[in-house]
């Protein structure tokens, strides 16, 4: 049994839901993200939020998987502050939907001033509505700098770091994220971010408290079964079932349950 706490099912097939259910997936959370192209208006996001809050929960339920979501305009589309503010204004009307856990995946992409402005406005929205936050950290060479800028921004708003998950950590960011009191997510990708082997290395070096694993499977090179494959890697190394359950079920369950809306249905 496992939870995949970060996956973009709008980009995946119904067959993927079936395979995930067969592999033991009982619940997922889907943050709003960049669709691979820039949307031309705020109305495009409204339709996307309807997809996340209406359509995907029904599609997941066919396979016994509980679907939850996080709403935002992704940092890749935050350079246009005018559009970002229009989208931010639409988000409150979706916050009473039962599967909405909070604001995410917000953060930075290229660490620009406009991205940082929009990040601050997202954090302020989360603070106003007492919502949890799921953070996207930048890619590759931009990750270390961006992760620090994001954590500093969240601290400025006085948000409890225990209600914030900093995602896509790797060896050079995980230690600082955990030391500053945040939760950390490791994304299991074949080429970028963490492989299952490196994720297990990080568990062995940093422990299993406040750490989870996710597939972040989307329209790019990614694997919707990455979490069970990481479980298998832990088993192959001889780690105890209790440790495997902790990182792939109990930790995400504990963090996400702070929202008051998360359920595995079990």
């Amino acid at each position, binding site marked *: 049994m496992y939870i995949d706490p970060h996956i973009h099912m709008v980009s995946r097939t119904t067959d993927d839901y079936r395979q995930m259910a067969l592999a033991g997936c009982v619940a997922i959370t889907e943050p709003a993200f*960049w669709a691979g192209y820039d949307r031309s208006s705020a109305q495009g996001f409204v339709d996307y939020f309807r997809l996340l809050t209406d359509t995907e929960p029904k599609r997941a339920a066919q396979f016994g998987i509980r679907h939850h979501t996080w709403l935002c305009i992704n940092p*890749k589309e935050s*350079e246009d502050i005018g559009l970002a503010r229009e989208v931010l204004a639409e988000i409150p009307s979706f916050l009473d939907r039962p599967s909405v856990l909070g604001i995410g995946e917000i953060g930075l*992409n*290229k*660490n*620009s*001033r*406009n*991205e*940082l402005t929009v990040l601050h406005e997202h954090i302020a929205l989360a603070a106003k509505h007492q919502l949890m936050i799921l953070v996207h950290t*930048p*890619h*590759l*060479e*931009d*990750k*270390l*700098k961006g992760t*620090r*800028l994001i954590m500093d921004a969240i601290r400025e708003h006085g948000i409890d770091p225990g209600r914030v998950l900093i995602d896509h950590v*790797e*060896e*050079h960011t995980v230690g600082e994220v955990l030391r500053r009191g945040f939760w950390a997510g490791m994304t299991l990708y074949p080429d970028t971010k963490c492989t299952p*082997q*490196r994720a297990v*290395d990080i*568990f*062995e070096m940093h*422990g*299993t408290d406040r750490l989870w694993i996710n597939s972040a499977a989307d329209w790019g090179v990614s694997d919707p079964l990455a979490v069970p494959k990481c479980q298998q890697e832990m088993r*192959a*190394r*001889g*780690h105890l079932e209790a*440790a495997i359950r902790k990182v792939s079920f109990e930790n995400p369950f504990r963090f996400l349950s702070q929202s008051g809306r998360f359920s595995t249905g079990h």
Partner: protein
Amino acid sequence: MSIPMKARDIADRYFLEHRAKVLDLAAFLDRYDRAAQAEGHAATDRIDDGRVRALLAAIHLLIDRKPERARRVLELWSDRSTDPIDRAPMKGAIGVAPLPDE
């Protein structure tokens, strides 16, 4: 959470996978050099591509026998500036920032 495997077990389980990765890296560098030489560059010329130079720089960290190589390689390849940039020049990332001495 400590590592439950012995060093010999690690080698048994992962050696062939990483032997193949080293060969892939060697073949990639050969391929790059062949293409550069076909363009008229001598093997002794400075490598034009900063990504390839960063890859070669990382190899020094792999063989220095010091711990946390993965963290140190990622830090070597990271942007070390601290202020936000004025405007995002693109959506994607290159994979490495310019090396500290460049």
